[in-house]
C-alpha cells in the first residue's frame, strides 16, 4: 500500500530524472525525486526504492564482462531478485575511458549508462567533472574512508592484489616473487595482461614491481626499469595475456589481478593447464575499482537499487565468489556474513593493503607514459 502511494507520487512528479524539486508525498516519507536522493532514506526506505525502480523497469549497465569478477552471476542474481527491471548490458569489454565518453556523449538520452564501474583515476576525474550523483548506500559507514569519496560520488567496490599466475604443467618451479622472475629459467615466458599505459591491471603490475625494487607509490621508475631488465634478458614477452593465450601456453607466466588468475585456475582445470597463483611477497599492491551513478541517469531509482544490491551482503559475496575482494570484506568477516568457503579460496596475502594518494598516482602515470616505450621496445 505504501509503495503504491509513493509510486503514484513519483510518477506525478514528472520524468526528468535530475530535477531537484522536492516532491512531498502524501505520507510525507519520500522527500525527493530518485535522481536527487543521496540515500535510501531520502526515498522513504528500501520498499519505496524498489517500487520506484520497478516503475522505471530498466537499468543500463556498461563495461561489465560476465567472466570478470563474477559479474555474469551478479547480473543474473539481480535479474532474478527484481524480475521487473530489465538489465541492458552495453559493451561488456569497454574501458573506463569508454564509460566516461558514453556518459558525456549521451547526456539526457534514455540509452545513457545508469551506473559505472570505473578505474580509480576515472572515478576521481569524473567526480571532478561533476558527472556523478552523490549517493550513500546503506552500508556507507562500513566502507573505509580511504576508499570512498567523502561526498559519496564514488566508492570502491571490489579489488585484488597483483599476482603471478603460472602454468605448473609447463613450468617446473613457479616464481613466487618479482625477484624470481629475473631468473634465466623463465626466458621468453613472462607476460603482462596488457599495455600498462592502457590496462589497469598491467599498470598495477608495474607499480607492484616498483614496490618490490625499492620504489614507492610516488616513484614507479624502479618498476619500469625492472620490466626493461626483464625485456633485456629475454624473459619478458610483449604478448598480452588473455584466457586464450594462457590456455594455448603462449603466456605460461602472467602478471595479473589475483581474482583473474584464480578464476583461470578454475576455468582451465582438466584442460592440460595447471594454473597456480602467487601474490608476490616483495611487491604487494592492491587496487580497487569504483562504483558511481551517472548524474543524469535515465533510470535513477534502478541505479540506486543496483548500488544497494552490490553493497548488500549478497552482492559482496557474489564478488567474493569470483575471487575478488569486496570492499566490505573486513567487516563481513567480523560479523560472520562473509561466505567462508569463498574466503578460504582466496590467494594468501600478508599484511593490509595501502593505496597511493591521488597525486602519487598521477605522478606515477605521467612517468609511466613517458618512459614505458623506451624500456620495453
Amino acid at each position, binding site marked *: 500500500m505504501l509503495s503504491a502511494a509513493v509510486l503514484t507520487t513519483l510518477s506525478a512528479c514528472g520524468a526528468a530524472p535530475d530535477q531537484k524539486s522536492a516532491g512531498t508525498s502524501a505520507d510525507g516519507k519520500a522527500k525527493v525525486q530518485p535522481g536527487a536522493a543521496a540515500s535510501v532514506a531520502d526515498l522513504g526506505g528500501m520498499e519505496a526504492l524498489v517500487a520506484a525502480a520497478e516503475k522505471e523497469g530498466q537499468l543500463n549497465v556498461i563495461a561489465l564482462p560476465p567472466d570478470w569478477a563474477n559479474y555474469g552471476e551478479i547480473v543474473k542474481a539481480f535479474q532474478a531478485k527484481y524480475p521487473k527491471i530489465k538489465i541492458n548490458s552495453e559493451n561488456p569489454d*569497454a574501458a573506463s575511458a569508454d564509460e566516461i565518453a558514453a556518459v558525456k556523449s549521451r547526456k539526457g538520452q534514455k540509452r545513457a549508462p545508469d551506473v559505472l564501474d570505473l578505474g580509480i583515476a576515472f572515478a576521481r*576525474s569524473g567526480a571532478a567533472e*561533476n558527472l556523478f550523483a552523490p549517493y550513500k548506500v546503506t552500508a556507507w559507514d562500513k566502507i573505509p574512508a580511504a576508499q570512498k569519496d567523502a561526498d559519496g560520488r564514488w566508492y570502491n567496490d571490489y579489488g585484488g592484489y597483483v599476482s603471478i599466475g603460472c602454468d605448473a604443467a609447463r613450468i617446473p618451479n613457479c616464481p613466487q616473487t618479482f625477484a624470481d622472475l629475473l631468473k634465466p629459467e623463465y626466458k621468453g615466458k613472462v607476460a603482462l595482461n596488457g599495455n*600498462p599505459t*592502457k590496462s589497469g591491471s598491467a599498470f598495477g603490475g608495474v607499480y607492484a614491481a616498483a614496490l618490490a625494487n625499492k620504489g614507492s607509490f610516488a616513484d614507479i621508475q624502479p618498476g619500469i626499469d625492472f620490466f626493461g631488465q626483464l625485456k633485456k634478458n629475454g624473459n619478458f614477452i*610483449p604478448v598480452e595475456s588473455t584466457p586464450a593465450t594462457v590456455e594455448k601456453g603462449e603466456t605460461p607466466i602472467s602478471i595479473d589481478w589475483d581474482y583473474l588468475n584464480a578464476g583461470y585456475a578454475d576455468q582451465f582445470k582438466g584442460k592440460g593447464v595447471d594454473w597456480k597463483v602467487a601474490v608476490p611477497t616483495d611487491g604487494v599492491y592492491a587496487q580497487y575499482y569504483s562504483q558511481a551513478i551517472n548524474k543524469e541517469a535515465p533510470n535513477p531509482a534502478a541505479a540506486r537499487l543496483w548500488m544497494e544490491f552490490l553493497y548488500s551482503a549478497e552482492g559482496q559475496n557474489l564478488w567474493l565468489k569470483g575471487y575478488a575482494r569486496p570492499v566490505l570484506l573486513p567487516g563481513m568477516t567480523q560479523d560472520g556474513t562473509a561466505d567462508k568457503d569463498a574466503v578460504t579460496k582466496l590467494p594468501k596475502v600478508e599484511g593490509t593493503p595501502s593505496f597511493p594518494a591521488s597525486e602519487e598516482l598521477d605522478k606515477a602515470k605521467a612517468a609511466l*607514459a*613517458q618512459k614505458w616505450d*623506451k624500456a620495453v621496445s
Partner: protein
Amino acid sequence: MSATTTPHPKGTAGGNRRRRRGPRTWLAALPLLVFTGLCFGIPLGAIAFGAVTRTDPVTGAVQPTGEHLARSLQGPYLGSLIGSVQLSALTALVGGLLGVLIAQAVVTSRSTALRNATLTASGVLANFGGVPLAFAFIATVGISGVVTQLADLGSLGWSLYSFTGLTVVYLYFLIPLMVLVIAPALDGLRPQWREAAQNNGATAGQFWRHVGLPVLAPSLLGGFVLLFGTAFAAHATAAALVGGSVPLVTLKIADALSGNVLTGQENVALALGLDMILIAGLVMAVYLPLQRRSARWLR
C-alpha cells in the same frame, strides 16, 4: 591514391593541356564534392578543432591552446610517430620492390592461368588484414605457433612480437596490394617500345634506364604511396600482435582515447591524428606532380 589507371586528359600535340571546364562538368561532380566535404571535411574539422583547443571540464569554456600539438611532438608520442613512419617506409619499400618483381614475372609469363591465379590471390590477400591475419601468424609463427615449435625458431632469435615480426606480417598484405596496383602499369609498357629500343641497339639495361623506369616512375611512386598509407594507418593487426612493445602512432591514439589508466588525453589523440594527416599529405604532395607528368604515356 591508386589512380594509375584513371584516364587522364590527353595532351594535345603542342603540349597545350587546357581542359574544357564548363559549368555542366562541375554539376556532375557536385554529389562527389558534397560527399567528400561531408565525410572528410567534418571529421577533419573536428580533429583540427579538438587538437588546438582545450575545454575546461567544469565550466565547459573552450580556449585555444597549442599544448596538445606540442605534446604530440614530444617524448613517446614523437617516438610513436617516428616508429610508424619507419615501419611504413620500410614495408612500403620492400613490399613495393617485391610486388613489382612478382607482377613483372606474371605479366611477361605466357601462362594466362598463372596470371589470373596470381591476380585473384592478390585481390584476396591484399584485403586480408586485421585481427584474423594477426591470429593466423600467431598460430603459425607465434611463441607457441606450429612452425615455431617444429623448426625451433625461438632459438634462432625469431620473435613475431617485434619490429621485424610486424614488418613480415605487413608485407603479407602489402606485396599483393603492390601486385594489383602495378600490374596494369606493366601491361601498359608496350612491347613495341622495347622492340624499337632493341632495333636501335639498346641493351635491356639501357631500355629500363631510359624508357621503362621513367615511364613507370609515377606508377611505382603511386604504389609506394599507397603502401605507405596502408601501413601507416593499420591498427588492428599491430594492436593484436605487439600491443605496446612497438611504438606506433595508431596504437598511441587508441591508448589515449580508450584506456583504464591515462585520463584526459583525448585532445592529444586528436593532435596525433592531425599529425598523421599532415604526414600523409606530405607524402601525397611528392607523388601528385610526378604522377601527372608522365601518366599520359600509360594510356
